[in-house]
């Protein structure tokens, strides 16, 4: 029997899982990644992975995990895939445990679980505060094992440029660029799985890694792959603001008992430890007594905005609040949160075990992403699949903490086998596709590079990127006004015009990072428009999407998936029904007592 060939683009958790599943079934996989896969952004995931294993005698169940996830996502997610994910989660954690992930343990030697936002159960397995790193390494090791058996071939240091589509709009492979030699080359395959992660760079400074530009998603979008719910952007409540990046302070800090507060007296200049308990305002505990510090992220982020901008209670008048773990024993902190406390200490030179941390919300995650079907992680273009943060499927209007790791792994588990089923069912494999198709795509991409390298202009790509980030951060994150969204879209179009006048300060043909950045920048600008216009059109508030002019969720008009498509240079929007068959939508109120 003919063995199909699968390409996986992206080597984070989703990409590695898809690779392992494909390799396990005997299929040859070519794995592409900008960075060595062990350095993928999944390493930044801190707090843990959700699985309702009910090892704490609380009566937790996968049904409750499913309900928390749907409710936390404000009913925007299609329910069947979320249900299947929650049911698979306990098995996923067992698998990772068998792979050697160093999860924290109970005294009986079982996996330990802690509480996270948006749930009342201890459902989050964790490896200190570096769970994503530990999981990524475990999958990386398994992929290396397959690599040693020649079942996987890695292309690390390659960036995706475009899909190779035949005249029937079927994907027959990809076109990629070697970031060292700048060689552009095509790679034929029967099916390609995209696991290209987040889009943080569109917002300038975020909690994301440098490679999270959304460039691959945008390139696919421009080739006809639909993009869904782009306007749903998660802003994490607790990050350390920084000029190069906002460093995440995991929700697990609150899961282990961390408390958020501001001084009751605005502008109180005393050091935090000198402010007595009675003069502190624990705003989350006061406003949300049932969930306290562990309300979902969209709620916590808006609460911080209220404390800082409406009540003017930011720390010494600045946009910051305290995240306080100083009351927790040092030993517990080191065992369960060591990884993140180290980050705070290294970057700010202050020991968070002694002094409350100063934090503020930062762009963190995209709930929206490549449109895929409910069953197979298949996009609307035959032969293209998607999994991980780059897909839109599992988190609705707001993702619960520690659900991303489980959705990455689960997405990879779905996409891997589904792509193989598709490839095995093909009448004609990639071998029968004429070489001219690949040559044409390669020449097209080489032409774009040549044009960029030779054009004379006045614009600096980094400046355009900085402006994009400032506008997106200011107008398309926590609070959205239609007027500002319109202005932002106009600004992005201005940046697209200025992009045409870009002048590359580096015109060499060896490891030219300026060139690859310019390719990414164009794609970022297009995807920024999808996000901004999507937000402009949705006149309601739901999950992370909040408009002061439309403060209520409006199910009658907006309980639907936004689906953006690209048609001859135009971004078009359509909307489709959300499958809410299992859990009927109900009001989402975390401030209720009961």
């Amino acid at each position, binding site marked *: 029997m003919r063995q199909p060939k699968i390409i996986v683009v992206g080597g984070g958790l989703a990409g590695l899982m898809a690779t392992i599943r494909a390799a*396990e079934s005997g299929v040859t996989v070519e794995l592409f990644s900008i960075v060595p896969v062990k350095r993928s952004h999944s390493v930044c995931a801190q707090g843990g992975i959700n699985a309702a294993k009910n090892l704490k005698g609380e009566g937790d169940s996968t049904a409750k995990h499913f309900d928390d996830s749907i409710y936390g996502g404000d009913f925007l997610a299609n329910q069947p895939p979320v249900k299947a994910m929650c049911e698979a989660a306990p098995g996923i954690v067992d698998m990772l445990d068998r792979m050697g992930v160093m999860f924290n*343990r109970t005294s009986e030697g079982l996996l330990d679980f802690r509480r996270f936002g948006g749930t009342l159960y201890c459902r989050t397995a964790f490896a200190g505060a570096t769970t994503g790193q530990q999981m990524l390494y475990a999958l990386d090791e398994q992929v290396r094992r397959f690599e040693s058996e020649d079942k996987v071939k890695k292309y690390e240091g390659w960036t995706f440029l475009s899909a190779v589509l035949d005249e029937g709009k079927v994907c027959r492979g990809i076109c990629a660029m070697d970031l060292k030699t700048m060689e552009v080359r095509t790679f034929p395959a029967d099916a390609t799985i995209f696991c290209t992660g987040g889009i943080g760079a569109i917002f300038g400074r975020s909690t994301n890694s440098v490679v999270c530009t959304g460039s691959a998603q945008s390139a696919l979008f421009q080739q006809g792959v639909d993009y869904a719910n782009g306007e749903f952007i998660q802003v994490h409540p607790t990050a350390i603001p920084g000029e190069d990046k906002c460093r995440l302070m995991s929700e697990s800090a609150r899961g282990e008992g961390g408390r958020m507060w501001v001084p009751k007296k605005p502008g109180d200049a005393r050091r935090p430890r000198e402010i007595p308990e009675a003069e502190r305002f624990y705003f989350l505990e006061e406003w949300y007594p049932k969930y306290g510090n562990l309300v979902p992220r969209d709620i916590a982020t808006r609460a911080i905005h209220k404390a800082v901008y409406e009540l003017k209670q930011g720390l010494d008048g600045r946009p910051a609040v305290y995240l306080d773990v100083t009351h927790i024993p040092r030993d517990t902190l080191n065992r369960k949160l060591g990884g993140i406390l180290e980050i705070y200490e290294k*970057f700010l030179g202050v020991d968070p075990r002694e002094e409350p941390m100063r934090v503020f919300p930062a762009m963190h995650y995209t709930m929206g992403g490549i449109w895929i079907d409910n069953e197979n992680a298949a996009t609307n273009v035959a032969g293209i699949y998607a999994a991980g943060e780059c897909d839109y499927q599992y988190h609705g209007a707001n993702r619960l903490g520690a659900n991303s790791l489980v959705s990455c792994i689960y997405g990879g588990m779905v996409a891997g086998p589904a792509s193989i089923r598709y490839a095995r069912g093909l009448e004609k494999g990639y071998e029968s596709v004429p070489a001219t198709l690949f040559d044409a795509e390669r020449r097209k991409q080489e032409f774009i590079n040549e044009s960029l390298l030779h054009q004379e202009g006045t614009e600096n790509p980094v400046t355009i990127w*900085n402006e994009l980030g400032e506008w997106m951060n200011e107008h398309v994150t926590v609070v959205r006004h239609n007027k500002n969204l319109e202005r932002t879209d106009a600004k992005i179009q201005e940046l697209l015009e200025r992009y045409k006048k870009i002048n590359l*300060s580096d015109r060499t043909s060896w490891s030219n990072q300026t060139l690859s950045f310019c390719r990414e920048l164009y794609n970022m600008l297009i995807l920024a428009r999808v996000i901004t216009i999507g937000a402009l059109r949705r006149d309601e508030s739901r999950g992370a999407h909040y408009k002061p002019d439309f403060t209520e969720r409006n199910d009658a008009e907006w309980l639907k998936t936004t689906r953006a498509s690209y048609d001859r240079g135009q971004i078009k929007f359509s909307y489709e029904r959300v499958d809410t068959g299992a859990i009927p939508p109900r009001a989402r109120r975390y401030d209720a007592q009961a």
Partner: protein
Amino acid sequence: MVTETSKHGSAGSGKKVLVRFKRQEDLREKPHWEEFSLDHRPGMNIIICLRDIAEHPVTSDGKPTTPIAYDANCLEEVCGACAMVVNGRPRQACSTLVDSLQQPIRVEPLSKFPIVRDMIVDRSSMFTNLMRMKAWVPIDGTYDLGPGPRMSPETQEKHYPLSRCITCGNCLEVCPQVNENSAFVGAAIISQVRLFNSHPTGAMHARERLAAVMGPGGVADCANAQNCVEVCPKEIPLTESIAEINRQAIRQAVVGWLLG
């Protein structure tokens, strides 16, 4: 959204940062130094210096140049990408704060790996060596086989630090045994052998790993300089790992010899 540290915000102190980068455009070119004078801001790290230069690639004597090529990804010292030699010591560029350094700051690529361009080096040999050492837990498959082996919290706490190695290469950079005439795999790789040999399932295949680590470039090449442990950004007990693997290797060799 306005944040505390905005690019052109509270800074404006007028202070300058002087940084020199060792540059090399490609393999044929000879390395040379370029100096940059940058606007100082609080919390500034080496990555911010590199980004400033990319936006305004002009040296301190006003000469236009190209942006400096470098590897970086997570910017929170957990991916291992941005290792560079700063003021003579290998560090992660992201967590290296300008205010903690003597100026002019000198930044160079790691010297123990093949240079690609500017700060970029090719560290793929580390991943190849992880493969040679079979640094993984050989599971039967990813289908649902129930929970993994039980483990005491004590064991977990001992192994977790080992599994935080970010493959940055700092330990190789400072090791006198890692040089053009040796194949020594370095402390990071040996420490991974220790990690997998002590995992309940991984231990079932300890012999294979020990056989590999007793081969060329293996643990016997360590000359006990103990520099590695000094520069590990994750404070991994690398010298303990080497001692432990040495013991395991000797035990395996002696047993093999006794059994003929």
